């Protein structure tokens, strides 16, 4: 369940990590239906990044897949080509940098990051999720059995 406290925690981690790297970015957190919960635009990041970050988070939450995978669906070589020119609530984006957030196999929301390049965005997204959910994910109930020594 995505709430403001969780969103703040994600944003604080993200902003701290971005500052350490010297990046300027916008980070958006949406709930499981794609509605905005919290958005931060760091000092120095350009104006459109806020809206792009929100679009990325929306796409990740509603399609329930990372936006980098969405971009593969829109490849001219695959049968799904064409879906990305439809008007999906004016928000669909295929730029990598949005990731859905899963908690015990339930979608609780999504995160979208927009900074300089999509590569950095994906990295920052993954680092944030690792910081917040890392322990839970690696020591999940399924994995603990196999790792038992």
């Amino acid at each position, binding site marked *: 369940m995505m709430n403001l406290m969780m*969103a703040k925690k994600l944003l604080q981690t993200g902003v701290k990590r971005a500052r350490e790297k010297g990046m300027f970015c916008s980070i958006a957190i949406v709930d499981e239906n794609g509605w905005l919960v919290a*958005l931060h635009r760091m000092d120095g990041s350009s104006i459109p990044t806020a809206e792009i970050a929100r679009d990325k988070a929306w796409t990740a939450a509603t399609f329930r897949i990372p936006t980098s995978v969405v971009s593969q669906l829109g490849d001219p070589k695959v049968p799904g080509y064409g879906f990305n020119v439809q008007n999906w609530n004016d928000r669909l984006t295929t730029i990598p940098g949005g990731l859905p957030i899963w908690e015990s196999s339930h979608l609780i929301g999504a995160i979208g990051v927009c900074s300089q390049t999509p590569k950095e965005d994906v990295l920052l997204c993954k680092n944030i999720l690792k910081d917040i959910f890392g322990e839970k994910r690696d020591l999940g109930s399924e994995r603990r059995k196999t790792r038992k020594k």
Partner: protein
Amino acid sequence: MKELTLELALKMIEAAERWAREIAESPCSIAVVDKAGAVIAVHRMDGAGMATTDIAIEKAWTAVAFKMPTLMGSRWLDPRNIGKLLGDHAMGMIGRGKGRLCFIPGGIPITDEENEIIGAIGCSGVPSGVGDISDTTVSQAGVTALYE
């Protein structure tokens, strides 16, 4: 000239949230924009309606674009003023600004020590009516926190 940073914006939003939670007892969305009308931070409190984020942003944008609280502009859209006096209403405002214009009370511009506008704060989701409780007062709580 003071620059509105993310840190200051969050300080304001936290204060407004506290006010909304403890005094207004109503979940709402709060947005802070800079002097260009670009969003710095938005928070939607748990339980607030999902459309309130957009309305909060629009209120803040309108406040900074017109350099006045949206409460002042809401008078222009009062249909009772039509025909009373020339220039006393501004119904043509509806739909301007690429649909971002929003004259619902709740957006307040933020000024620095030299009375220069450095941004705006907007709040949406608080039912207005009883006493001091309204979107405008939640925004005011945020502005007050900037100079504490």
